[in-house]
């Protein structure tokens, strides 16, 4: 008999209304270490809204979000260290190159051996040749890879990803699948929204289907 995995994230009764429209109603989500939970559903079903409420980018109308049994407050530096978030709207410094961005994230988190780690992740996401480019010159797929790379050059216990497969090519999705499986393997929790059946099947331990707004 294996011991139960420690619970990282607990969401209870999450509700988000925009005026008369209820986008998410009474949602419960649990994510444990080494577990991947995927939010699935059509456009507008509230996947990104849930992730925004969990990460503190939005405020739920009702419900609670706890990390390690304590209310999740994204202003807390410890929470920021634990959560690696890649949402769809991530923007970059227009005057810093690709590698300088990753160096900044790694060093801000005081990662030991930051530069070799950044080089490794750059090679993994296929951006070595673009390391001196500015974000404004990258393609949308390359910008997505840079956003994902930003999550892998820093400490993390819970990955929160909003449609991480978006704008990635076939090889990119394959790499992402393997990477997320590896992240799970070393005990990280994953909460993500996705439309990609192959990625969901390969990574998800639990799939939560969200309906449309009411």
């Amino acid at each position: 008999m294996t011991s139960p995995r420690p619970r990282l994230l607990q969401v209870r009764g999450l509700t988000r209304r925009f005026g008369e429209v209820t986008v998410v109603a009474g949602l419960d989500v649990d994510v444990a270490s080494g577990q991947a939970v995927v939010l699935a559903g059509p456009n507008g079903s509230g996947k990104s809204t849930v992730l925004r409420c969990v990460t503190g980018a939005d405020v739920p109308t009702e419900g609670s979000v706890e990390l390690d049994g304590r209310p999740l407050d994204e202003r807390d530096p410890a929470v920021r260290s634990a959560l690696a978030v890649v949402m769809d709207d991530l923007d970059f410094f227009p005057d810093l190159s690709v590698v300088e961005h990753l160096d900044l994230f790694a060093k801000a988190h005081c990662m030991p051996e930051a530069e070799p780690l950044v080089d490794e992740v750059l090679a993994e996401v296929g951006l070595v040749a673009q390391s001196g480019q500015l974000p404004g010159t990258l393609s949308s797929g390359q910008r997505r890879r840079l956003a994902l790379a930003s999550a892998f050059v820093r400490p993390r216990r819970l990955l929160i990803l909003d449609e991480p497969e978006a704008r990635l090519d076939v090889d990119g999705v394959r790499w992402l699948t393997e990477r997320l499986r590896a992240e799970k393997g070393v005990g990280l929790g994953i909460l993500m929204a996705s439309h990609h059946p192959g990625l969901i099947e390969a990574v998800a331990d639990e799939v939560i289907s969200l309906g449309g707004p009411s």
Partner: protein
Amino acid sequence: MDVLGDVYVAVFATVMFGSMLANVVLNVGRVSDELCVTRGCHEARSLLPWTVALAVLVVTLALSRLLGPVFVTPAVGSWLLPTPVDRAELLRPRLVKILVICVLGVCPIVAAAAVLAGFGVGPTVGLVGVSALLGVAGVSLVALAQRRQGPVARLVTWSLALALWATLLTLATRRLPLVGTPEVFSTAWLAVLLAAGVAAVIATVRALRSLAHLRDRAVTPGGQLAPGLSGALASLDLALLFDVLLAHRWRRHDAVRPRRGGPSGLGALLWTDLTRLRRAPQPLVTLAAVVVVPYAGVVAGAGRIVVLVAALAGFLATLPLLSGLRVLVRTPGLARLMPFSVARLRWAVLVVPTGLAVLFGLACGPAVGQGLEVPAGAGLLLGLAVGLSGLASAVRWVTGRPPDYSRPLVSTPAGGVPTNLYGSAVRGFDVLLLTTAPMLLAPTVRGGEASLLLTAVVLAYLTGRR
């Protein structure tokens, strides 16, 4: 009928506001005649039209370079440029329109400066004519350079900016011989006017001929920039304007030489600011150059107003140093990637600009001290307060929130207007007035200390709020 009505309103408004402005300028000129009695004031006043003309040319060239000057809308870029349509035919009206706008912009400003300086009618007409023609020549030169994307336009712009700075420097160091105010239209004016005219005609003809050879990539970036700028200006969202310009400036660079290394933790953010300065030292040069402004103000007899002049110069020159802060404010997702509170994060990216603002303030100290007629030590403290006041104003500018259309709107003849829309236009200037007020009211060490305290409170609020 609607068109006629609109034309009537446009003409009526132009005539009404134009006559009001002309009246104000003439009255100020008369008042200046009575009040400007010192040699320094005379020097500054006689220099005014020349410095204004130079400044207008620099701004004209800078705007031309920013937009192209020839540019097409994204729709024209997508649908017409790829077709076999005659490109010169397509672009000619655009260049002509820009040249007309240039003339309409340059003439009233230079004319106002000449009238303020007490120029006679003939020399005023001469200076306005020369400035307009040189403006046309400059814009056409930039249009010519647009074809090859060479450094000529940049060199000319920087040379004119350098000339402007040198003029201010000679005034500030009291090395300028009294220029005097010309009363009559001499043959020298005619010769210069003719030379400027010839330059304008040659440059314009060559620019018009070059239009057929302009590449797609030369005319579309300006078209992408223009809607962003007009949108930001329409909503008076000046911070958005900053974003648009910043993105446009760096989009023209394909790649840079990465600079790695540096400390960990909050120091990593400081390192990126230093990287920015090494990569693009222009903001540093500008900040150092504008130190001359308060000194010129002292010579011109500005008195206590030197405080405002120095703080305003610091405010505008500090803005380009705050790109890191601006990006973090506008992109909460980026800030969330780092393990720091909002306030610590913002303070970290303010370390370098604060250090430079302190140096700027100390460099302005003697001028501020002279303007306020206080001892040298007190002048340094007041200069420090002025430098930090400029920084606080710039921070207020870049941390401003956009107009909030989700709140109740105020009904106006122009439609619903967000309550914070009009406040956006004075953002930064409000903090500048607030933080310099103690020094203006009490030009003593106490006034400087009160100003520093107010600046600290403002900065703490602006960096701490979410």
